[in-house]
């Protein structure tokens, strides 16, 4: 029953909250969409914490994404034991990196007076769910072999079934492995992942939704006219008024 709740219902609740909440916050509470950087108040301790955590978590995110998008390629890559080990150890390294970073960040926030002034309870909720997520992932990888193969063969079909609105809960519920610890960690990891998705709109997690990838192809200078006289509506020009000029200034 709990399995159906966690892997059949929770995903949809989480995704619905995520979608509605994020769109609402972005459109109606735009001022509150920020990474809330505290480097200005404390920059030294932030360096290792933030770098270790962010680079680790970004790599892990893309690793999971690859496992979801091209599972066959991952399985094929893992065909050779050497390549399997390279993949597993790389991923494990990034996980350790993000865990160390997270612990450093928690310590920084807990011990720096200035940072406490800009902390709210949701920041600690974020730390808690991230710790559970990363720690369960690390333990799962340690106890259950091999995570990358398992993700491609079980997790990807499960996620596909979720996105197809026909969740195949049995894939997770009837997982059988000799190691009960691994099984527990797998379930924790999945449930906590959906929990994170669900609380994104209510936490500083929103900042990753606005990661500035468009900066890569944007022109450097940005000039905006309140009213561009050159673009006053004519019979051929259907959208008059405000215009953005991305030309090089």
């Amino acid at each position, binding site marked *: 029953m709990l399995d159906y709740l966690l892997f059949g219902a929770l995903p949809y609740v989480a995704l619905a909250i995520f979608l509605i909440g994020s769109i609402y916050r972005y459109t109606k509470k735009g001022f509150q969409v920020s990474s809330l*950087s505290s480097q*200005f108040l404390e920059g030294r301790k932030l360096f290792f914490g933030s770098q270790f*955590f962010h680079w680790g978590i970004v790599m892990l995110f893309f690793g999971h994404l690859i496992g979801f998008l091209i599972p066959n390629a991952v399985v094929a890559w893992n065909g050779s034991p050497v390549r399997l080990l390279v993949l597993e150890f790389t991923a494990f390294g990034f996980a350790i990196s993000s865990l160390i970073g997270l612990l450093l960040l928690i310590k920084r926030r807990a011990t720096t007076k200035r940072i406490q002034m800009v902390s709210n309870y949701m920041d600690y909720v974020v730390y808690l769910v991230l710790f559970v997520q990363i720690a369960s992932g690390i333990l799962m990888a340690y106890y259950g072999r091999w995570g990358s193969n398992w993700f491609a063969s079980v997790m990807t079909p499960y996620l596909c079934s979720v996105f197809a609105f026909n969740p195949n809960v049995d894939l997770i519920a009837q997982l059988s492995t000799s190691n009960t610890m691994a099984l527990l960690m797998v379930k924790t990891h999945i449930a906590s992942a959906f929990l994170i998705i669900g609380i994104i709109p209510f936490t500083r997690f929103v900042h990753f939704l606005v990661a*500035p990838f*468009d*900066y890569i192809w*944007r022109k*450097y200078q940005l000039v*905006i006219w309140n009213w561009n006289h050159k673009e006053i509506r004519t019979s051929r020009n259907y959208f008059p008024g405000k215009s953005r000029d991305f030309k090089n200034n």
Partner: protein
Amino acid sequence: MNIRSQIAMVFHLDKCIGCHTCSVACKNIWTDRKGAEYMWWNNVETKPGTGYPTKWEDQDIYQGGWKKDGDSVSLKGAGKLKGLKNIFHNPNMPVLDDYYEPWAYRYQDLFDAPEGDDQPIGRAVSLITGEPIEIQSGPNWDDDLSGTPDYARQDVNFKHLSQAEQEAMFQLEKMTFHYLPRICNHCLNPACVASCPSGALYKRGEDGVVLINQERCRAWRMCVTACPYKKSYYNWNTGKSEKCVLCYPRLESGQPPACMHSCVGRIRYLGVMLYDADRIQAVASCDESEIVDRHMDIYLNPNDPTVIKAARENGIADSTIKAAQNSPVYKFVKEWKIALPLHPEFRTLPNLFYVPPLLPAMASVSTDGTYDTVSEHLLAGVEKLRVPIRYLSSLFTAGNDDKVIDVFKKLHAVRVSRRDTTVKDVTDKQLNTVMNEASIDVDTANAIFRLTSLATFEERFVIPAAHREEAIEMLENTGDYKGSTGFGFKEKPARGL
């Protein structure tokens, strides 16, 4: 030719008395809020000094501005690759202690303290943590050369001066200082705009004011690093960056910005300049030796019929063109060429120009201890000037001494010409020599004198109609928004979770 209009400014440093009225006017309107206490969108520094934030001019530390990169320019410490690479931790960003920790005093303790043997005191408490602090520094800690060993002697511009020249600036009875009021330069080639990963910063097409869209800012903090003048500030409470808005709501209703309006010494001038936007990249990337000249050339003559025609084609309103023709900034910068940009080597093409200060340069103490201000002596040559020209050229002309000397000759000629008019103790030969050296005539000297000393409010501030004043009044009662983040802002500026 792609003509745009720009609100530009001139600060006449000879007239600045360092009273900080501008800073206080700005603070009362814009930065008297939680998270913004440490910000001084307008600040006044004593030069020589390290300024605010400390050593802001030292781009080895802060990596602000542009550097020449072939026939183009690239951001020194930000940009697509460096900016995104450093997005999790920005190594060149100034932190709170590079500015100062803002504080208030517990005045209430003076009234509430129980009776005792000791005099009650109001302790300083941090406006960030609320705890008592030992005050380390403030925004103008080096005012009037106070704390010289720690501040003035650390001036970044000294790296171009010999040891002897530096020492000369601190000799008793020979020392010299002047004030440097600074606001955002609203640059033609703004490094802050180019550095913003989320595209929150932009330059307004109509008047060239550079703004930060508070709803798009995501606290990536790159603008704080990229601005070489350190005029973009991070609000630690709201998690958004903020900067001087040139009081655009005032500009739009025809009033000068509060710092300029309140200026006691009347040192500030504001007006429209027309410029050719197609030339920005070429000018920003030219050789350092010619960057001042090329920068001046980008501004166009608003009386030239071809310029007027091209401006009209580009949609610039007739009222704006007329304002450009009456612009005091055009006179100082283009006609008379006595105003210079601050640190042009940063290559952002700033729109704030300074008339370099002649006064400390001209007065020297003679051997009998009296001030020597005889005009003939003052002509003796720049090597006898009190302040090393090299110091001023490091500030205003990217190290080109001749440019500063040219300006000084003109400023001096104006004085000699006025002395001839009022005191009449200058011989014709003296007058002609001075005027010829400065290559100005008496009429020009009189015009410079008039705009410098006698100009009315309307002559100092020539603001084109924005034609938006009625629109904004219909939308909101601007008075209701004092203390909030800005106009046009329906949401309470509360920090997100």
